[in-house]
């Protein structure tokens, strides 16, 4: 039987991990002579205290949702896709090409077209490491990391030499045409009487990310393809015995994963910047790994973890803005959260399991 009840597994373990991360962060803030309680206050009001704050929190969360789902899908196939960063970059290229080259009549069509291009470019960028893994046995962790660098170089070249408007000093594309601008949460919520901040970048992509969550759950737990992906991830010898092709599943899982990472670009490139700039991804590909780890690769867990990291990002930015806590320290806090929720999971889990066992024995 399971040692710990399911509810404890999904709620207690991450909550206690978070609490530990928070305590340690508080000590660090104390150590540099700042007030941790004031810091928490500032973070909460900054990230969640206004629709402006929420708008940023959800905008970041949308990015992390896509990259977190991307890592999760690959993870279920036993593949560690560290290349979300590069795949999202290339997704951005797809979005830029779709928005600049095709005269879209309306943003809905532009969204569909750009999403398709983003997924396609992201998937294509994942396809090469996937092929190398499936056919040549080159380890996917190594190749996807390398493809992040190659992706950055490709984007650099394309932006500087090919897509930069003539006369511009900035390595970025031209602004996307008006018809491709996505409605923000302000635009969406205004008709139903909610006055959401106008300047926050959260946009309709957030809803698409939620939809992606549901679809990924459906894929993994309701379709035979998802069943094959999970089977392969749990046991390769069993998959072979069951007639599941390792090559096919490696390719399919990585294409889906790359496609999801690429989709992030409709949020940051199309929804927010409305043009493609260098380093548009801003590390969201890597945060996706932490989000997937913390969310236990389950779409619902990924959703919660993405919102948490969105909060940390936005709250951290507020801290840097209003206090003398340096920016680097915010990275430390984020790192502590990743450390406790991802890497030190067993540190919390084992004592909890022992506790539940003791309780069970006393009841028995």
């Amino acid at each position, binding site marked *: *039987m399971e040692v710990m009840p399911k509810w404890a597994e999904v709620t207690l373990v991450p909550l206690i991990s978070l609490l530990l991360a928070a305590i340690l962060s508080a000590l660090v803030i104390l150590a540099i002579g700042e007030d941790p309680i004031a810091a928490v206050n500032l973070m909460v009001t900054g990230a969640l205290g206004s629709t402006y704050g929420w708008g940023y929190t959800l905008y970041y969360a949308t990015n992390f949702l896509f990259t977190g789902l991307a890592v999760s899908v690959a993870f279920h196939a036993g593949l560690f896709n560290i290349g979300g960063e590069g795949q999202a970059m290339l997704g951005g290229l797809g979005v830029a090409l779709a928005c600049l080259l095709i005269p879209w009549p309306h943003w809905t069509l532009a969204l569909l077209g750009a999403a398709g291009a983003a997924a396609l470019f992201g998937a294509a960028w994942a396809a090469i490491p996937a092929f190398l893994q499936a056919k040549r046995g080159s380890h996917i962790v190594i190749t996807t990391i390398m493809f992040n660098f190659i992706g950055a170089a490709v984007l650099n070249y394309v932006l500087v030499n090919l897509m930069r408007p003539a006369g511009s000093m900035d390595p970025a594309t031209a602004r996307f045409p008006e018809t491709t601008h996505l409605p923000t949460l302000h635009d969406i919520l205004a008709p139903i009487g909610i006055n959401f901040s106008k300047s926050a970048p959260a946009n309709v992509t957030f809803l698409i990310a939620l939809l992606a969550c549901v679809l990924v759950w459906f894929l993994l737990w*309701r*379709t*035979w393809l998802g*069943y094959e992906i999970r089977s392969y991830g749990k046991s390769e010898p069993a998959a072979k015995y069951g007639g599941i092709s390792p090559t096919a599943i490696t390719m399919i899982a990585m294409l889906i994963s790359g496609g999801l990472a690429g989709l992030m670009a409709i949020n940051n490139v199309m929804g927010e910047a409305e043009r493609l700039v260098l380093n548009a991804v801003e590390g969201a590909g890597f945060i996706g790994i932490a989000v997937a780890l913390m969310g236990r690769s389950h779409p619902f867990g990924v959703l919660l973890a993405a919102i948490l990291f969105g909060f940390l990002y936005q709250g951290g930015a507020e801290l840097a803005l209003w206090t003398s806590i340096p920016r680097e320290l915010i990275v430390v806090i984020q790192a502590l959260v990743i450390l406790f929720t991802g890497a030190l999971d067993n540190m919390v889990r084992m004592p909890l399991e022992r506790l539940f*066992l003791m309780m069970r024995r006393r009841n028995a």
Partner: protein
Amino acid sequence: MSGSDTSGRQETAAPAIELQGISKAFGPVQANKDISIRVMPGTIHGIIGENGAGKSTLMSILYGFYKADKGEIFIAGKKTDIPDSQAAIAAGIGMVFQHFKLVENFTVLENIILGAEDGGLLTPSLAKARKTLLELEHEYGLNVDPDAVIEELGVGMQQRVEILKALYRQADILILDEPTGVLTPAEADQLFRILDRLREEGKTIILITHKLREIMEATDTVSVMRRGEMTATVKTKDTSPAELAELMVGRKVLLRVDKKPAVPGDVVLDIKDLHVVDDKGVERLKGIDLQVRAGEIVGIAGVAGNGQSELLEVLGGYADATGEIRVNGQPLDLSGKHSDGRSRRARGIAHVPEDRQREGLIMDFSAWENTAFGYHRDQDYQSGVLLNNAAIRADTEAKMERFDVRPPNPGLAAKNFSGGNQQKIVLAREIERNPDLLLVGQPTRGVDIGAIEFIHQQIVALRDKGKAVLLVSVELEEILALADRVAVMFDGHIMGERMSAETDEKELGLLMAGVGN
């Protein structure tokens, strides 16, 4: 074999090992419950019990891997704490594990001193060890070349190295955990002769096994374990296999398979000149010819690693081969696109793989997910791209009832079932597809005696329905009991075929050792 002249001495001397009230729990599972046992010096003491009865836990406590929750250990009459394996070695206890702990590319001598080097320099301690080792080999008649590299030695020889390792560390008490699992019958006999010699030299030996025959042949005293408890300790000469089996299981068991003579029909499986070369370029099957007819069980006997696994993998569709295999007269694709598990199943081949935990089941998946495994793209389990989870669950419930899987809970993960019930889940999945050909590898490995009976009955029932069965097992007893015809494999060849009614373990044992006709 129990020497009557030693029994007088046993009564007076302090026991070599005495355990008093040992208890150990892992979570909610009570692995050992209040176990007391006395092992007299200079005897071979057997411990028998089903898988999961707690034998290995008990020995791990004795060897310092686990700490007992309760209870005391006395070595030669002295209360001894054994917190780790160093303490066990210091107390004169040596352990020969089921899976050898040898460094494959080291020589015998290097393996012997590993962890028992004296001084920082290797050369003098090797020279000293060589002298001691040769003395030991001479004293106990355990001849092994000290300079041979382990990976070039046979399994029987490797086991001798393990025994020598223990003796080199001055063990007076030797624990052997399922020592014959990897040996041919002849090698096993040799091992028992070595154990006899060790006993004559005054060593105490604990033999852990689940094979009744070995207990009867080799031991002086036997203790039976069931569900973590010691149910009986008896003198071997005063008991019988039937009584021991009953003590192990807690009820009367049928030790042989009840079956009518086979009525073989048409050839279902026809293998001609089959060759398999593995990833490392080693030829594993060197021209196999074999036929299996409808309504018969053909057993493949042989020591593990002589090509049986490869044969099953090729037939199951996950290894490439050259040669020809026909099923119901139609050739199978042996290399390329259509040699996979799915197309094999479509051809009426069902496969119960040798290693159910690695291949046959996905241990983290629930029973119902496992019941669909391999057949998950069949019409009755699907609706469009979706899995029909409700249908699979219902089917699993029905299968669990028919195969008496306990607990009958389709939502429980495969890893939470006992070995026997895991095997029943696999068997139900494969047999109930009503295949023309059933491949079965090690059907009762790690399965308790009670379930063995049931599993054998199911296989025979399939045969009686006129289906062909190819059985691979390293348990010669099982092959002889179940198969109608036996083919013996050695080094990628079939050494010979016999009708099982007309042969015996001795003849098959010779074939298994590569002694041809």
